[in-house]
């Protein structure tokens, strides 16, 4: 690196976390306890996915949601996913396919233990809110084969032309009314109460408002948050089991106050090794992170003073920053609109528009794409996206590759080299701009 490189921070043993991160961690732990207590408590469990999850609806039936991708992420962060992926490959799953799926299959084959060390309950119902990723459909067929329980498919059409048509909405609302709700009533034994759904949707909108405020604080210099590595903590409750709950409302109110305080104090984001210090690079990131080496990956950024000011990954469970809020006045339509508009259900031109917009709006130095080996939904087309975004924004872009939860595809040296080259490129652009001025 050049002479302006910041000195690496000494690695700390325990990651520093701000209060909201601690709070989020406690919420997630409590949810896992509720899930693993289900056989004793009698609670019924609904497995479903993050993008397009119908948490408010599921909760109306008293069901607990279990999210297989979140379990895979937990296994990635705990470094157990590697063995689970290998286990799945041993029992016949291809090395070419999604590692979330294989981590999940492998985890089930190895005892199906939750992060709290206790066994996950078998799901009572699989709710396939099929949006943004073809693999979800196959994943749920695999889960159904394993558990042989009721499976509900909610097909979300793809936003291929950049708009939601009345036909799409009508199709989805009809599925909700005539397929999803009756089956959830049957599984749960609870009658659907639309007023309860409205109440939950009100709470969702409240939390969404605070989340957007938090994410948009990154427009400031310095940004008080990291909208990718830190952002993953921030989206946990709303993308997971908590949207539509008092817990989520309280969490996002708390988070907003915390971030506003950092902003008022002129502070940058909290990293696992404390305050970031000087903000040197502002990036927009496209694509999911690597979870098996999450902290090492993050360190490559904060050691250089690089802050992610906006990211697409923090929109996979819902895009709220262009105005959408769950609307209690049209409860089923709003669920449909939510499912239709998640990030990976948007066509490539829309994704490009969004990222170009972020580069401008958040005054970023450039775009970084972390291309995920086993996620075609995100990855197919990213090289063209990169070119288009560079062309339209005039800002430099870089491309790195890793995987979600398969440690075999995280090459620290390669990624670090590319990042260092990228930061040098930004410096050169800056120097060029200064001399031109």
């Amino acid at each position, binding site marked *: 690196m050049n002479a302006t490189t910041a000195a690496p921070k000494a690695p700390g043993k325990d990651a520093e976390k701000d209060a909201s991160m601690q709070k989020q961690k406690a919420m997630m732990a409590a949810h896992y306890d509720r899930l693993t207590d289900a056989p004793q408590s009698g609670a019924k469990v609904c497995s479903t996915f993050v993008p397009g999850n119908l948490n408010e609806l599921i909760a109306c039936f008293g069901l607990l949601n279990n999210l297989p991708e979140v379990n895979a992420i937990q296994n990635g962060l705990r470094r157990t996913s590697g063995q689970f992926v290998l286990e799945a490959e041993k029992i016949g799953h291809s090395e070419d396919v999604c590692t979330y799926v294989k981590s999940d299959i492998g985890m089930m084959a190895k005892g199906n233990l939750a992060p709290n060390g206790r066994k996950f309950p078998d799901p009572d119902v699989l709710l396939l809110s099929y949006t943004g990723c*073809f693999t979800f459909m196959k994943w749920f067929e695999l889960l159904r084969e394993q558990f042989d329980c009721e499976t509900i498919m909610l*097909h979300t059409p*793809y936003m291929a032309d950049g708009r939601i048509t009345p036909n799409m909405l009508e*199709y989805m609302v009809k599925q909700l009314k005539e397929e999803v709700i009756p089956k959830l009533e049957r599984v749960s034994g609870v009658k659907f109460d639309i007023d309860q759904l409205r109440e939950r949707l009100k709470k969702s909108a409240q939390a969404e408002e605070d989340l957007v405020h938090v994410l948009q604080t990154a427009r400031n210099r310095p940004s008080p948050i990291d909208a990718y590595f830190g952002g993953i903590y921030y989206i946990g409750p709303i993308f997971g089991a908590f949207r539509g709950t008092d817990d989520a409302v309280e969490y996002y109110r708390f988070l907003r106050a915390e971030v506003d305080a950092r902003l008022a104090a002129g502070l940058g984001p909290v990293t696992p090794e404390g305050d970031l210090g000087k903000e040197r690079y502002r990036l927009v990131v496209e694509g999911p992170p690597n979870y098996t080496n999450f902290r090492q990956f993050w360190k490559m950024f904060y050691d250089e003073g690089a802050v992610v000011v906006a990211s697409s990954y923090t929109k996979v469970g819902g895009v709220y920053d262009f105005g959408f809020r769950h609307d209690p006045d049209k409860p089923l339509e709003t669920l449909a609109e939510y499912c239709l508009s998640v990030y990976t259900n948007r*066509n490539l031109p829309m994704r490009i528009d969004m990222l170009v917009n972020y580069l401008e709006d958040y005054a970023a130095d450039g775009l970084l794409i972390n291309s995920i080996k086993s996620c*075609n939904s995100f990855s*197919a087309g990213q090289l063209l996206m990169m070119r288009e975004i560079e062309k339209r924004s005039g800002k430099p872009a870089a491309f790195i590759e890793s995987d979600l939860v398969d440690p075999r595809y995280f090459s620290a040296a390669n990624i670090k080299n590319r990042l260092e080259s990228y930061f040098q490129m930004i410096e050169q652009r800056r120097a060029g701009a200064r001399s031109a001025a």
Partner: protein
Amino acid sequence: MLETAMPETAAIIDHATALFEDLNFGAARDWKAAVPGRKVVGYLPIYVPRELIHAAGMLPLGIVGGGDQLEVIHGDAYYQSYICRIPRSTIELGVSGRLDFVDAMLFPSICDVMRNLSGMWKLMFPQVYTRYFDVPQNYRDDIGGNYYVNELAELRHELGALRGAPITDAELNLSIDAYNENRRLVNELYGYRIAQPWQVPAAEVYLLMRAGLVLPVDEHSAMLRDYLAAARRTARPRRDNCRIVLTGVFCEQPPLNLIKSLELSGCYVVDDDLLLVTRWLTADVPTGGDPLRNLALAFLHHSESTAAKYEPSQKEKGQHLVRAVRRSNAEGVIFASPSFCDPALLDRPMLQHVLSAAGVPYVAFKYAENSGQMQPIREQAGTFADSIKLWSEQ
């Protein structure tokens, strides 16, 4: 090497081979040039309702990548190494000008790669009408059916706008009739192969189906009629091959040599999921009443099962493959999947479990459309064929 075709069928297969090898789509270009104002609509696997395109007076052109004869230079710059080959060779076809005569492109709902390719096409070829063709994964007439009818209506409207005049019901019913006839002939050929696979080698069936992707439907039907008549007139030698169903090949195509290699290694292919668009609908579509409703109901209730379609019933999952085995008196199944093909590879373990429960032996391997080395595949398929022969002798 493929067994030398009989003289009468040889000329037909030579024509089909020439169409297959022509990566500039000369036949479709000639068709378009023959009458001013004609239009060509490209489509990718697995299925689009070609009846709508035909009814607009346009030529549906099936595009299934570049195969093993296309050198991919530009296409690789658009895709990471861990993405299958068909999108990169399709991009190559586009960037190299081989599709410059195509007026519209349809990208069916099959996987995330194909889905995203539709967006790439919009960006790279803005002058081409590009549509992602979504199909329902809900099979109730009043839910998925209504949705699909409206999607078809939108496509019909847009194709009508492209030609400058709306597509009438009468035109659509005539086209439905033409494709019903074509599917009957395709099914007759597949049925003939089941009865006497030595008479219709898999590579020849494949070339005939490929011809159906580039020829106008009536020409293709005539070709099938001629081939069937010619094939029935002369007996070919029968080999002591086992009978297999080939599956997983519904999108990116295996090289022709791979198909030939299977038969050379002792396997008669008696059923397959190659080029499913030619026989996606499994029953005639009625030619009276509302044609869009008829096409929609055929899709919901009389269409093939494949990895890109949701199977609502656990009991029914994979049974289409067991039925294919029983219907064709097959002795085993070969899973051939393109590398990095999510639908085929994610489906495979479930299908294998179903086959195991039904006592059907299987073997699996991967390929790419440009795979060049066939020896490992011959060895694997040959060993599989031998093992079947040994078991059947017991």
